[in-house]
Structures are given as C-alpha cells and as structure tokens.
C-alpha cells in the first residue's frame, strides 16, 4: 500500500505519462472521426443505390395504358417483386439481405415495411442499415434507419421518344 502511494506521489516521469495520455486521446479522436465519415459514406452510398432501385421498380411497374385516360397507375405487386430482384441481382445481397465484399460481411438491410400503392403509384421502403464499427465492442452493431419513397405522377404517354 505504501509502495503504491509512493509511486502515486512521485512526480518523476510525469511529462512522459502526460504525453502518453495526449497521444492516446488524439488517436482515439482521429479513430472516431475516421469511423464516423466511413459510416456516413457507406450510408449515403447505400441510400443512393436504394433510391435508384425504388425509382427503377416504380418505372418498370407503371401501367402505361392507363395514361391514355389521363391517370397514372402501377402494378404494386410487380413493383415489389422488381425491387427484391434489384436487391439481389444489382446490389448483390444474399437471401437474408446481407452484403459481402471479398468474403467479408459489410452490412445487412433490415426491411421494416415495403408499401406499394397502385393509385397514386408510390413505393415506400422503410428499414435500417445494420453495420459494424470498430467501436462495436462498446456500442454493439449500429443501425442507421432510412425511408425511401418514389412516386410517378406522369400521365403523358412516353418512353419511346
């Protein structure tokens, strides 16, 4: 006990310990910043790709013949099917919506709801992006929620012009 007190009261080498704490603090701060920007970039990338998929699905499922009568209508079942096809084929997700790059798990899409309406032709995808960070041992896996929607209101016939 007395030995420990002596060590604590000894002011020799204080500067060295201070430098160690400072370096640790700076490295931790840098790691937090890098990790934050990495996850932000991943989230934006996935959100962009999902938005494109939702737009594609709505565009593909539009019932063009209704436009002659001045209304826009969509085959909602086809839109949902097309979106799932996009998730697997274009985004490269497996059956559980996991994304792997070079054999390494990157993220998982957790879809809470997929609402498609025929009229107005709208597809809304709600869910979250589950990913891992280097601070997972403290925070667990990170969930980043997203809501992506696409509406097509065009009533003029087109697509071949």
């Amino acid at each position, binding site marked *: 006990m007395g030995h420990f007190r002596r060590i604590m009261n000894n002011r020799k080498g204080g500067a060295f310990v201070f430098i160690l704490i400072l370096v640790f603090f700076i490295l931790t701060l840098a790691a937090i910043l890098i990790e934050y920007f990495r996850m932000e970039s991943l989230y934006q990338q996935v959100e962009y790709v999902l938005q*494109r998929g939702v737009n*594609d699905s709505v*565009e*593909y499922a539009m019932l063009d013949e209704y436009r002659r009568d001045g209304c826009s209508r969509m085959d909602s079942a086809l839109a949902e099917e097309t979106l799932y096809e996009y998730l697997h084929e*274009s985004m490269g997700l497996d059956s559980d919506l996991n994304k792997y790059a070079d054999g390494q798990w990157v993220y998982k899409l957790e879809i809470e709801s997929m609402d498609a309406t025929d009229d107005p032709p709208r597809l809304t995808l709600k869910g979250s992006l589950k990913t891992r960070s280097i601070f997972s041992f403290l925070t667990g896996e990170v969930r980043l929620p997203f809501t992506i929607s696409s509406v097509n209101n065009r009533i003029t016939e087109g*697509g*071949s012009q």
Partner: protein
Amino acid sequence: MNRKHRGIWGRNSPPLPFKKLLFNRRGSAYYELIIKTLVVITLMATVMSFLSIFTAYLNLNHMCRRVVRVVELEGQVSDNAYDVFYRLKEQTGLSPEMTIEDVQYCDGSQKIQLRDTFTVTMTDSYVFTLFKPSFAPPVQINIPMKVSITGMSEKYWKLPE
C-alpha cells in the same frame, strides 16, 4: 597578440560593437519567434498549395457524379448531360475529357434501357507549380487525375417489337 586575444575571428575580427551585438543573448527569444513564425507560415502555404490538388480531384469527382445522375435520370446520353458537363467545366475551371464506356445502347441510338449500366470516365491533369523563379520558366509537375463512376439507367424505353 596571441590567439587567445584574437578570439574566433583571428585577424579578421569584426568591429567591437558588432561583435558585442552578436554575442549578446538579450532579445534572442524575439528573433526565435520571428524565425519560427516564418517556418510555420511557409509550412502552411505548402500544405495549402497541396490542398488545391485534392480540391481539383473532388471537383472532378463531383462533375462526374452529376453527369452520371443526369444520364441515369434521362436514360440516354442526351444534350442535357453535355450541358451539365460544360456548365460544370466553366464553374470549376477544370477541362477534363469525358468518355462513356461499358454501355449497351438500345434502338441504335444513345438510349440506355432501364437497369442497364454504364460508366462515365473523366480524365484531367492538374498542373502543380513547385516554384516560379523570375529568371526561368516555372517548375511544374503534371498530376494525372481519373474518375470513373458507374451508373444505371432509370428510364424504361418501349422498343418496337
């Protein structure tokens, strides 16, 4: 007069007041501060001039992303895409070359079918001036920059049967 009396300068010893000034240590912190400030300013100027390379690369990346988005939305390499490209060229002051690769046009035109992918590549070279001597041409390095972004058409083209 022996060597000891002559000092370090020998026969060519400077006049006494100057010698006194050189060996006088008063006010040395002031000169030290001036030199340190000059060094810091030079370092900052160097870092800032290097930053311009990254800014140019980010601008090129932004240009490419914007053009890809236009092509995605239009579903074709239209005049709008070139308009955006030329406008961004003017705004950023860059003069890259744009090529569209890995693309399969449909209907023998510049149309890209829904979900078909394409790659927009922009190449440019950034001229980094190391220094500009008044008696000779400036010493410059050409840094090649290349950005490739893959997009996917969001437009469905009705093709004749």
